[in-house]
């Protein structure tokens, strides 16, 4: 079975490392690390990941704008927002723009694994 490809977008180096460490152990192949929405969009075009983790507050292009741009290119990629913006309005907006999951920061590696697991399970079921 081919490993699913993961792209990580977050402006924090340590958050990118934490996500890569946690999800790399779950059979996901990390194809790119982006420090802002613009980088994420460029990496998305060249790597075509199956799954994305997306921060929202990032320089140059924020996460919502990036999700919108990616959705215009691909309707199938699974997107998990990982953000400190923990109000309901932001979560609803992210889901409306095309994310399938939302994980609040701070998060534990177990919570991240569960959130990605749910996202991928939904894909295989449907």
């Amino acid at each position, binding site marked *: 079975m081919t490993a699913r490809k993961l792209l990580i977008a977050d402006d*924090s*180096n340590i958050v990118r490392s934490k996500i890569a460490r946690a999800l790399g152990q779950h059979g996901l192949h990390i194809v790119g690390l982006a420090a802002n929405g613009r980088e994420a969009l460029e990496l998305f075009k060249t790597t075509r990941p199956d799954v994305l983790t997306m921060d929202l*507050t990032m320089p140059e292009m924020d996460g919502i704008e990036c999700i919108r741009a990616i959705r215009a290119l691909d309707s199938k990629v699974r997107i998990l927002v990982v953000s*400190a*913006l*923990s*109000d309901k309005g932001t979560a609803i907006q992210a889901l409306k723009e095309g994310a399938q999951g939302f994980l*609040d920061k*701070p998060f534990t590696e177990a919570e991240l694994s569960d959130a990605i697991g749910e996202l991928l399970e939904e894909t295989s079921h449907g």
Partner: protein
Amino acid sequence: MDEAQLKVFVSIVQHYFEKVTGKAAEVGTPFLGEPTELPIHDFTGVIGISGSQRGCVYFSAPGQMLKELLLRAGETDVSEGNLADLTGEIANTISGNARREFGSEFLISVPVVVRGSGQHITVPKGVKAYVIPLRWHKIAAALVVSVAKA
């Protein structure tokens, strides 16, 4: 900023340390800081606030605390760059979590990180700055909240 709003930040700081390290930070009694005497440690992450409120929120901590936090999180790279990165991320997380109480119109900037304990952070004129002192593993740090209705 009223007492109830200040308590929101106290609760978010406690939750942050407990969630990330398994050990809650001891939070002292918040006090009104003098703009010229606000606490500054080795690394300070500043978030600008706009929208329904205006001002700034900053988290300031010594390198020793940040190193310990990184190691506990399984990060082996404790370079200055990562210490600065963590400071910005903590400031961002605390400010972002405050939207649960303040709503989506509480707009936060990306973090700006200032290095060096000899620095001075300028808070907005006419906006009170509350200092929330905290200790984790016997190391002191501070969260400063200088926010008022826009």
